[in-house]
């Protein structure tokens, strides 16, 4: 069983109102020097596959087809060791 971690983020050029709101909240709490706060999604998938390369390819496919919207989002897949 292989475990993967998928990070989905809004593309850099797209304004993230949730991130802006959280940044304002943090600043109102007294945290200074915040340059940028952006919010994304974190998904874990455990996959029954022995081959890391193959598993990553499969998950890449899932990201392109469903997990991320290529128009507005970027994704990053990290494969973890055996679990």
């Amino acid at each position, binding site marked *: 069983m292989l475990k993967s971690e998928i990070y989905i983020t*809004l593309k850099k050029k*797209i*304004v993230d*109102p*949730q991130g802006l*709101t959280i940044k304002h909240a943090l600043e109102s709490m007294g945290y200074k020097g915040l340059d940028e706060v952006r919010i994304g*999604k974190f998904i874990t998938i455990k996959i029954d596959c022995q081959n890391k390369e193959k598993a990553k390819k499969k998950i890449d496919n899932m990201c392109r087809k*469903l*997990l991320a*919207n290529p*128009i*507005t989002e970027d994704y990053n897949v990290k494969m973890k060791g055996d679990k």
Partner: protein
Amino acid sequence: MKFGVIVFPGSNCEQDCFYAIRDILKQPAEYIWHKNTKVDAYDCLVLPGGFSYGDYLRTGAVARFSPVMKSVTRFAHRGGLVIGICNGFQILLEAGLLPGAMLRNKNLHFICKHVHIKLENNATPFTNLGKRDQILKIPIAHNEGNYYIDTKGLKNLTENKQIVFRYCSEQGEVGDRFNPNGAIGNVAGIINKQGNVLGMMPHPERSAEKLLGSDHGSLIFKSTLKWLKGK
């Protein structure tokens, strides 16, 4: 003319659409459960608003893989009329039947109110009874109506007259002040390049008769019927 109203798990405007078609437009309507893949007997398909699949992951992202969507895509590619309202619009975007994507409303609020939209293209099957620049009062109710498309895409939409509705003031002024959700170019509704698939965030079925505070939405249904009859 026979209308099919597609019902996904989590749709919640299907009865309003059904009522607008059967009781106001006086045309036959049927519900189509999302697992049903037979759509060829219909003249027009309506994807209603709601929260298909709980809006999980992204609005419309899961619904676009419902069994019925392959048939809807085929139907659209053959020139059949498809109307996506609110969540239905979001599903059409995710399915790639319309260009662009939806983002969370700029102010992070769920917005439920009457807005004014300007009819910019009345040469479509869905708007042929309207006048160019006519102002319609139709309600919106959404959390993700912040339409996004890249600069090139927006240019294409504009050049091909695919922007059918834009948010505006009561007098018809299009500007940031009258943009409820941050949508690029105040876009409230678009059509595909072939002109047979319409997506709009405002709910015409919720403004299809005077009793509802506005009957401007009936223009969409009546235009569609006129076009189908004249085909």
